[in-house]
């Protein structure tokens, strides 16, 4: 096909290949994929956006294999994937455990990103948590893990999370599940509790079929700080409650079926077919489901409003009740509940919540949202010492000598500005330089308790 309308002068130099003579296009045999040997797996499979997980696809294959007793499912070959070469890649701080990589050009460095990094830093432990029941069995703390698993199953039963075991209805794709094990630590970093949790594979839920709204309100950092200044000013009491298995209280607004967890027996009457034909119906939102956070918030807010608490769209996660000169403010951060009240109101507010939900009373708030709260004589100090120590350690800076270095000043001279745009041929950071993570970790600090570094962080984040 000669494109004769292209003027000859501008036409690119190329050779036309008549149809039918193409050497490669008509070949049916498997051929090299951009220089890779046939059957070789892509090292960096393509993900849709931003983050890529190493575990994600792998796990899928595993679950597929588990259920492949009847039908032999072979691992689908990745034929349509083009290997991507990012020169802007960076590995995450917990790369060894989660395998997440970021493309520096795609990542949106915002408060949410900063929060996720902070979570990674906070939850970063020296020794890893077991990943499956099998690993738990092998660990020396098996009795403790076993107790934790039993406790979790008990609370699942108590909350009536599971409905009947049914034959999976046609067209329904039951979602997977997973056990998650964590050791909860107190503010000094000591193991306080062993915790096991059965979670649903929320990532296999489909929007508009399995869930609609997922947004759940949380307390804004500025709101929280204002409340603390109010507490200091009025001399109020500051109390914290933890809801035991909060998410399991929320009722579901759509039908969700889950794969039958191991240890659940099939109903004997209809033992036709294999285990894979059956699934369990969920009545309450299980951890891991996309909508469970919202369902829990809805449930709690419904109850509090019924009890005479008021709330406002300015800050939907703050509930207030007043009787005469006494009042109580309840601030909700998912399953952490902070109660601020005048002395008289305390028992009433706590009783009101305890009546409906199983709660653990944590006493005076000392540690909330990675903020350390010290109740001192003159007032209340909010700081993040433990977090800073963790960040320094994570970035191998804990042994460095502190120095007061003023931020580098930008120059109006575009050529000499230290923050000028990248020049051609300038070297990029390698994937092992944790620049994005460091910024995220610092942003979280700058947003929460250290306004003095926020300008510097803002400059380097660009």
């Amino acid at each position, binding site marked *: 096909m000669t494109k004769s309308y292209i003027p000859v002068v501008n036409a690119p130099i190329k050779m036309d290949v008549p149809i039918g003579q193409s050497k490669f296009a008509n070949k049916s045999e498997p051929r090299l994929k951009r220089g890779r040997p046939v059957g070789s797996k892509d090292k960096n499979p393509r993900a849709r956006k931003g983050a890529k997980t190493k575990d994600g696809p792998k796990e899928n294959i595993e679950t597929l294999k588990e259920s492949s007793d009847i039908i032999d499912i072979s691992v689908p070959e990745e034929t349509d994937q083009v290997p991507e070469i990012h020169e802007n890649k960076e590995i995450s701080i917990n790369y060894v455990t989660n395998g997440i990589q970021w493309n520096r050009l795609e990542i949106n460095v915002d408060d949410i990103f900063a929060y996720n990094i902070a979570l990674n830093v906070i939850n970063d432990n020296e020794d890893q948590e077991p990943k499956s029941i099998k690993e738990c069995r092998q660990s020396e703390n098996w009795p403790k893990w076993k107790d934790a698993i039993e406790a979790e199953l008990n609370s699942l039963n108590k909350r009536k999370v599971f409905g009947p075991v049914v034959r999976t209805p046609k067209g329904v794709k039951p979602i997977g599940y997973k056990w998650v094990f964590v050791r909860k630590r107190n503010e000094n970093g000591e193991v306080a509790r062993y915790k096991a949790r059965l979670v649903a594979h929320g990532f296999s839920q489909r929007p508009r079929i399995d869930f609609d709204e997922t947004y759940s309100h949380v307390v804004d950092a500025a709101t929280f700080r204002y409340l603390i200044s109010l507490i200091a000013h009025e001399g109020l009491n500051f109390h914290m409650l933890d809801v035991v298995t909060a998410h399991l209280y929320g009722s579901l607004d759509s039908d969700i079926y889950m794969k039958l967890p191991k240890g659940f027996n099939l109903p004997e009457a209809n033992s036709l077919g294999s285990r894979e034909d059956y699934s369990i119906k969920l009545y309450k939102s299980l951890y891991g489901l996309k909508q469970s956070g919202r369902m829990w918030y809805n449930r709690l807010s419904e109850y509090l409003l019924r009890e005479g608490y008021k709330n406002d769209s300015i800050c939907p996660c703050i509930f207030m009740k007043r009787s005469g000169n006494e009042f109580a403010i309840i601030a909700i951060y998912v399953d952490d509940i902070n109660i601020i009240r005048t002395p008289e109101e305390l028992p009433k507010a706590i009783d009101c919540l305890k009546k409906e939900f199983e709660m653990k009373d944590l006493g005076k708030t000392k540690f909330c949202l990675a903020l350390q709260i010290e109740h001192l004589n003159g007032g*209340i100090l909010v700081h993040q010492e433990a977090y800073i120590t963790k960040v320094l350690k994570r970035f191998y800076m804990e042994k460095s000598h502190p120095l007061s270095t003023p931020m580098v000043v930008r120059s109006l001279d575009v050529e000499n500005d230290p923050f000028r745009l990248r020049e051609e041929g300038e070297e990029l950071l390698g994937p092992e330089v944790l620049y994005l993570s460091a910024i995220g970790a610092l942003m979280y600090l700058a947003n929460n308790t250290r306004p*003095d570094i926020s*300008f510097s962080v803002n*400059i380097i984040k660009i």
Partner: protein
Amino acid sequence: MGLFYLKVSKLELIGYVDAGYLSDPHHGRSQTGYLFTSGETTISWRSVKQTVTTTSSNHAELLALHETSRECVWLRSLIQHKQNNCGLSSGRMDATIIYEDNTTCISQLKEGYIKRDRTKHISPKFFFTHDLQKNGDINIQQIRSCGNLADVFTKSPPSKVFEKLASRILRDICLHEGEK
């Protein structure tokens, strides 16, 4: 080191605002910085690059004030809502004082939008602050740059100045005895 919320006699919201003209010379952008204190301790702050190009420091200050007013309106509604519901106070809050160091800007916002040769390109929407001031929601006051707490959000001042301002924002308190 952290934010220390003191027992104060009056819980008052005060704002500070500053702009750093041409903090990003490559894109011609300036920096907005603001800070709000409640009872003398910081509760809300931000240091952010402006999204539109400004042509003068005055223009940049107007944009910064606009941004600050938005935050101020939200904080005021939040505080008012809490206080009214808890019976701590009733009726309207007093006007929130916002400290600004650019005198031209202050007089411009007192008078409202007037088309002049220097300001003819500034969109009238940035005079939102003027309306708020007329309503008695905010009150813009002049402050010298060296006392403007928001200064640290728009430039990197010399270490002495920085330490002085930072010590007013943050408080260094010895938690562990025996440590310095």
